[in-house]
């Protein structure tokens, strides 16, 4: 089964089995504006929940992307090198950043599901 969870920092993680695909939400890409570069981690790197996992750069500024949960990087989206604008065009699809093997699926409980994230965005005005 597939399940998408969100952080308050606007990362998402899509869970398939013990693999999580991480990117930034549609709200986040709109806030950033035109994405021109994404710095991705090495395959095999390990992150704790909340560690910096990637850097996304718009024309204006660089922003850090944090790991929503702990895990080990198993794949990165090398397509972003040639087409960083995929993050704007299709943030939850072609614009994904990296996939990790979850270290502790219990950490997912602290994240928001889709309706909860939508409610959270409303509070941001």
């Amino acid at each position, binding site marked *: 089964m597939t399940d998408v969870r969100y952080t308050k*920092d*606007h*990362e998402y993680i899509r869970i398939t089995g013990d693999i999580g695909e991480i990117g*930034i939400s549609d709200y*986040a890409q709109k*806030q*950033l*504006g*035109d994405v*021109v*570069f994404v*710095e991705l981690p090495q395959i095999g790197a390990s992150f704790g929940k909340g560690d910096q996992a990637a*850097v*996304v*750069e*718009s*024309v*204006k*500024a*660089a*922003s*850090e*992307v*944090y790991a929503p949960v702990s895990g080990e990087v198993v794949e990165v989206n090398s397509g972003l*090198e040639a087409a*960083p604008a995929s993050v704007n065009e299709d943030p939850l699809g072609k614009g994904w950043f990296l996939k990790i093997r979850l270290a502790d699926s219990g950490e997912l409980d602290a994240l928001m599901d889709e309706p909860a994230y939508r409610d959270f965005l409303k509070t941001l005005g």
Partner: protein
Amino acid sequence: MSQSESLSNSVLNVTPLHALHVRLGARMAGFAGWDMPIQYADGLIAEHLWTRRSAGLFDVSHMGQILLEGPGAIAALERLIAADIAGLGENRIRYAQFLTHDGGIIDDLMVTRLPAAIGIDRLFLVVNAGRKAVDVAHLAQSLAGSGVNMQVLDDRALIALQGPRAIDVLKDRLPGVENMAFMSFMTIGEALITRSGYTGEDGYEISLPASQIDAFADDLLNDERVKPVGLGARDSLRLEAGLCLYGHDIDETTSPVEAALAWSIGKRRRIEGGFAGADRIQRELREGPARKRIGLLLEGRQPAREGAQIATPDGQIVGAVTSGSFSPSTERCIAMGYVAAAFARADTPLNVLVRGKALPARVVSMPFVPHTYIR
């Protein structure tokens, strides 16, 4: 995700066009104490490219507009700047910098010499929003007792219309502007118009009473050749044009010679001196500055930002980036910064250090994108 953008929580000033920006769906953010449009619905890159191709409308009402009037106003201003204003024709404009006694830059500004009665000088200054209060205090102190009157035109809005079609758009509304020379000034009714800008494109800046600006901007935006452009694209456009942003590329520690702005120092002024900071500036003109502002073209797609160190290929740190971004027009990453003078020559290979990586770059002459000013 976290953005390093700084937003002030204090109450922000708003321009007379604030409601228009909100209505157009702009993303607003604090800039130099003002709530300003960063980008509109089309986004930064689209706005940037539209300005290079057609005509972009910018609200720059946050900038300071100042009138100096009185006998000796030119001489008084020339003590604060190194540009030649006495040698400037009426209705002509020069770029200048207010200088500290040490030759640092308090602010950069545009100076227009207005027509005036014999014996009375009249000057129109446009200064940066973030330095307006400092500039006004500096002027007030310098002019005290001189008989020169300073008037801050807080009741006026300022817009810029920039790009190759700006001339055609504006001449339909303000006939006569098509005949203006680059860096010249004219008035039409209550409009103060300069053929100038901050994008490297041909274009105009138009000052109008605040009460008239909404209708004028609306009319411009109804023209299909015009789109609104936010401060985001204003920054990427000026970077491509090799133009300095105060507080980033120039400040009170940088001299105009180091900043590669010596072209703005008048020949007469170089010889005569008689301006703040003349000792340092004349010495640097004679001997060359210790460091220079340069342009960098990066090889890869990763941008280098303000603060990134600049190193030689063998790792010696020789300077730092002061502005850097992705250039929408060239689809390359470009930057400007200061390096020790020995490394400032065009084609010098250098690295920019970003998050532990050395990004290869080389020194290039600026502008990065050719200016298209009318000459």
